[in-house]
């Protein structure tokens, strides 16, 4: 599904990713762990298409297409979703408005009929109920004045509505209490199936108790330095990143 080969990325002439490789097959959950500044979030932003990151070498193929050729909105319509580490506050734009526009943009891309207000409202309420999110969130402006936990839950809610093929979760667990963490994990687990993949970027092993990954990768200084199964996360929790 996703193949990242020898990816080099720089920001302001500083190289952040230095030959990154990762292959994700349909249905797999990959976790990328690593110390601060190792390039985890850069990878997430590059996958979503952030322009300020310059790809100097390497390639990214997503479902057979050259991802680097696509605009951020095309990537989203192709099925990529990024749950932001720091979701952006957009005062004056209602959550429900953004989500309906986004979902219908995706449907239009796939040459499907747009959803009507009523249909969308029902879909949104069903998903919210399942996630245990207050319905008022729909009317509120996107992330504006949300607590840290609310913002992260909102990302997961958006993911549920947009039903991506590949979801990248960038430190969605940071700053969450255990209840919120369970909601996030539940949101991810309920969507796991043989056609959908996840890349879960995290600093801590805690989230992986609830979202059990198929593979764990250790990222240090812009590269994957070690890969293994879920037990690698436990090992990292005990020993830290000092050995790398």
């Amino acid at each position, binding site marked *: 599904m996703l193949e990242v080969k020898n990816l080099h990325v720089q920001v302001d002439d500083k190289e952040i990713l230095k030959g990154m490789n990762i292959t994700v097959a349909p249905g797999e959950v990959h976790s990328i762990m690593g110390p601060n500044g190792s390039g985890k979030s850069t990878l997430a932003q590059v996958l*979503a*298409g*952030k*322009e300020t990151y310059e790809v100097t070498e390497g390639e990214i193929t997503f479902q057979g297409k050259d991802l680097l050729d696509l*605009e*951020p*909105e095309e*990537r*989203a*319509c192709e099925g990529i*979703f*990024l749950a*932001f580490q720091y*979701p*952006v*506050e*957009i*005062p*004056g*734009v209602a959550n429900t*408005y*953004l*989500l309906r*526009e*986004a*979902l219908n*943009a*995706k449907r239009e*891309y796939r040459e499907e009929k747009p959803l009507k207000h009523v249909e969308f409202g029902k879909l949104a309420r069903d998903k919210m109920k399942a996630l245990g999110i207050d319905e008022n969130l729909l009317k509120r*402006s996107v992330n504006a004045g949300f607590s840290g936990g609310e913002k992260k839950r909102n990302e997961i809610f*958006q993911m549920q509505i*947009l039903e991506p093929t590949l979801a990248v979760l960038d430190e969605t667990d940071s700053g969450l209490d255990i209840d919120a963490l369970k909601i996030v994990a539940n949101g991810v687990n309920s969507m796991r199936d043989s056609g959908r993949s996840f890349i879960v970027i995290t600093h801590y092993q805690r989230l992986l108790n609830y979202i059990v990954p198929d593979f764990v990768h250790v990222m240090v200084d812009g590269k994957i330095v070690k890969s293994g199964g879920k037990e690698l996360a436990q090992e990292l929790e005990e020993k830290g990143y000092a050995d790398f």
Partner: protein
Amino acid sequence: MAIIFDGTRESYVEGLSEFLGSGQEDTPGWVADLRREAISGFGELGFPTLSDEEWRFTNLEALRRGSFSIAEDGISDVSKKTVNSYGFSGLDCLRLVFVNGRFASSLSDAGDAGEGIVVKALSEAIREDGDLVKGHLAKYADYEKDAFISLNTSYFEDGVFVYVPDRTVLEKPVHVLHVSTDEGRPLFINPRNLIIIGQSSDAKVIEHYVSLSQSVYFSNVVTEVVCGEDANLEHYRLEFESRKAFNFSTLRVNQQKNSNITSHSILYGGAIVRNNVHPVLAGEGCNSDIYGLFMSEGRQHMDNFMRVEHASPHCDSRQFYNGVLDGRSKGVFHGRILVHEGAEKTDAKQTNRNLLLSDTAQIDTKPQLEIYNDDVKCTHGATIGQMDEEALFYLCSRGVSMRKAKIIMLRAFTNETLEHMSIDSVKETLENTVMKWFEQRLGNGDGS
């Protein structure tokens, strides 16, 4: 014979006697006296220059170089259909239409405003309700200190007169449509409006300025409002003048005890525009909410000059102005809050946010607090920025196109002011206008 104003101070001063002699013969002596007194004010003042502190960001050289004349008698050929196209869909309102400053009764429908309520042309009110008008006209807008108010008071032709007696609700909004047409030469138009709201009464007035051509003219508006004790007024000023017009306007409000005003200014047209909003919170416990949205492009220049005067205790005021500037246009926000000595417990807040769509657009924003009392709460803030790249990326990452993302962001920005309008059909009409303006700004491509 048209009176020609060639841009010099003398031509405006000397033109008055000719003006008074042509078509003004039947106006009462007190009005003629007022006009003479006012023009002597202009004789002293002349047009402001960049060295005047209140005009340091707005250059009036082009106005001084221009030559203008008062419109001839007789109403230009403006059809009812044209007038209707400036209406607000589904809005049941009273409508008064003025063409080049003159009242067009055949295009107006003041209908039945209600028991005791007067909604008519000011020229008629001067003849028919002389004492009422005399007690208020030019009592608030100071023609000795402001050149444009002097000129208007000297040369005003007509405008709306609204009188709502005590404990009365004017149910229908009053739509005052000022239309300018191309007369083949640049006109000097002086609309004058007077709105008097009695104790515990309510009214909504929409002043709407449009142009049927893209011609040059000098439009100089003065509106005086008296908002009685415990009264409520919602006032709209929608400025859609020609892109070549000079437009100056003053809204001067006198607020009595416990009264509320909400003012909305939309600036859209004009080459050089100056929007003065000056409420005086004269009685205790008043509230003033002042909203504005200005949109400029090309070489348009839009200057907003706020002067919120707290003269009594326990009054609240809010100023909230947003500007969107494109091309090589310039904007000015000059917001002064003046708190008098006796005005303790004043709560005054001022916010001006600006969005620059091009590298060449420019905004000067100048908050100014002048406070003569220790027991007050006054805050001000201004922001100037480009469209938030992080927010645009966030929207695009959800599948929305860059063009759509920009429209969403702009809409959110402009709605911060539009959402406070209580007349839905006016709000929706403006939202559509704003959206069309944005779409033109973004072009037909992807807007990135």
